[in-house]
């Protein structure tokens, strides 16, 4: 990569994601459907400020999660992750 990397990471999306799921999401992980790499949400390349928030795989750039908000609705697309793995706190 020759250009200066200009992305945030999943920590920046913690507020929106955590409010949606009711729990911290930064530690959640799952396989990227583009390349199979296991990605922790905190480390996903994150882009705010567009029509929505986009989280991409650090390895292959596949969109893992996309979140769009309107005043009354929130849409979460998770089509880039095979599954979400949470720590189970009994």
């Amino acid at each position, binding site marked *: 990569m020759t250009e200066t990397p200009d*992305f945030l*990471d999943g*920590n*920046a999306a*913690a*507020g929106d994601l955590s*409010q949606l799921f*009711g729990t911290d999401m*930064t530690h959640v992980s799952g396989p990227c459907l583009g390349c199979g790499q296991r990605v922790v949400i*905190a480390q996903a390349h994150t882009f705010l400020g567009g029509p929505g928030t986009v989280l991409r795989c650090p390895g292959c750039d596949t969109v893992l999660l996309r979140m769009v908000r309107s005043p009354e609705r929130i849409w979460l697309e998770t089509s880039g992750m095979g599954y979400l793995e949470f720590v189970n706190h009994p």
Partner: protein
Amino acid sequence: MERTAVLARLTWQPATLQAVHPETPTARTLTLAVPGWEGHQPGQHLDLRLTAAGGYTAQRAYSIGSAPAAETVKLTVEVTPGGEVSPFLAHMAHPGVRVEVRGPLGGWFVWSPNEAGPVQLIGGGSGVVPLMSMLRTHRAIGHRAPMRLLYSVRSPDALLFAGELTAGDQVGAADHVTVVYSRQAPSGDLRGPGRVDAADIATHVLAAEDSPKCFVCGPTPFVEAVNELLGRAGHDLHQIRAERFGTGRT
């Protein structure tokens, strides 16, 4: 009941700016009074939201620099050129100003005092803020695990928390701070100005064999470069946690 209490933390709550403290010509530490705030884990951040008279809102994430405490948090805001929120917070906001906050946020980029192992903190510019929460907590509780901070700043007048960081090491202290300068070094500084490189890692960073937990924070290019250097120095990538602040150009 407990579940409601957990969710309540994840919604916006009112806060009042209690005090401001200049750090540099372009950065200030803000102390916020947040009723009901129960503290945080070192490394966490909060979202801060400003609402203009017409209802327009702007929100940004800010790392918490203070050690955990009830009812108050300290943020250190650096002006982002062309930024929408930071110029207001860093230059104009005065005690009494009301904002909203959401948090604490982030359970991954966190150091817990329960952990006994050595810790290496590496911060660039304002990336030192969440690391300061870790260092202040470590000092406040007299934690004995070795903790080192390698802090890279542009120039001496960009140094945040200067009084605290350059106070000098106390004999027997379990923490150690090294400041390096990327563009302009103070006269007499033997290293001279330059970005963090392999020599800095070899000289100032805990050895990979000690399996330190590494926390790296700052602008995205800084984090990417440091992660690469740590990997080349033999550090296990799974022991490295990073938080990227972008390039500050957006």
